[in-house]
């Protein structure tokens, strides 16, 4: 039987049975979603590729733990979300260490260490990059990938009410930001990522 006609669960079982090509089909099916989640959360083109690759490598190593009762896509996006948030936390810590070091040496902080490579304000991702990481992740998963509250809560390891709060505050913040500088409707957004 062709791999294309198999469900995600059947492909996972095939990989566990020794069929490595089945994993390639899973990559084909979900690569764009993983790249989208990582790119929208991290807001940095340079890191997207590495994080997307790490997501699949990690998923391959944990394929034996995948519970068939869950959607494979959501399971994969949970891994991608966790990796992205961890990456942002690590970068924040690194930035903090750099600032403290510069302070003790009495050096001026160089602008080159700003971290995320922000898109132009015209791009919609600019607004997302202005949100808190958890709010951004919740909005990306709930609105852009149409996960349910429960699925977002599982992906973020947070209670459902906390997810609701993230969404509410994130949208409120977006409205505040966009009321000052609205997104131009006349020009299409340039390619993101």
């Amino acid at each position, binding site marked *: 039987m062709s791999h294309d006609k198999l469900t995600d669960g059947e492909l996972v079982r095939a990989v*566990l049975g020794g069929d490595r090509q089945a994993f*390639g089909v899973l990559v084909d099916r979900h690569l764009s979603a993983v790249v989208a989640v990582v*790119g929208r959360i991290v807001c940095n083109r340079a890191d997207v590729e590495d994080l997307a*690759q790490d997501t699949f490598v990690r998923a391959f190593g944990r394929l034996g733990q995948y519970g068939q009762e869950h959607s494979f896509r959501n399971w994969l996006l949970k891994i991608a979300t966790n990796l992205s948030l961890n990456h942002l936390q690590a970068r924040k810590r690194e930035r903090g260490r750099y600032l403290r070091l510069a302070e003790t040496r009495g050096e001026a902080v160089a602008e080159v260490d700003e971290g995320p490579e922000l898109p132009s304000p015209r791009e919609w991702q600019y607004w997302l990059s202005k949100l808190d990481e958890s709010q951004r992740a919740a909005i990306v998963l709930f609105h852009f990938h149409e996960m349910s509250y429960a699925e977002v809560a599982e992906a973020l390891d947070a209670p459902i009410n906390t997810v609701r709060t993230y969404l509410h505050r994130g949208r409120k913040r*977006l409205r505040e930001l966009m009321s000052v500088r609205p997104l131009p409707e006349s020009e299409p957004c340039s390619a993101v990522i």
Partner: protein
Amino acid sequence: MQCRDIKLQIEAWWDRDLPPETAARVERHLETCPDCRAEYGPVTQLLRHPEPVAVPDGLRDRILAAVEPLPLPVAGKSDNRRHPRPWIGFLHAPWAGALAACLTFAFLAWVSSMIPVGGSHIEEPVVTNPPSPLVLASWAGALTMPGQMGALPAIARAAVFEQVVQERAAPPETFVRNRISDQDLPSLDATPAIPQIPILLRLSALGA
């Protein structure tokens, strides 16, 4: 539907909590009302129509190349490489319990060695002898944290009890006699005040 209804229901609409008919009315209103579109349109556009994301060229092949050398996953098992924590691996070693017991015993032995031997405190003015560590520990457990003494091992509790008995064995007149005979001492109450107990001593006495 009025603009004020939109204001009340826009969050629920974004949350996908509205029934389909109500959601459709909200959507129609946003399309036709310029004020509401100006207020909620940009965020709605952002949330409902995200830009497509381009997959970097060659990423699929790089992922498969990275996975290729990995061993095949086994059902029910993880590669356990997400959180390698070698620094706590020794806790699972079979000798970890024995090591913990030895360290605890050594610590208790060290604490006991700090106690003055004999009843010399009876001959000396009581107040000039600072309370021994075990007494402090016993006060910490018995006086300031009632009910916590059970955390101490039995042998330590016995040692503490013995020391408390020795310390308090001096008859009440000892205090009085010393006060009368030694006029240089500052005035004393019949019961000495409980001194400030270092927190580390409290914790160690409680086996924390």
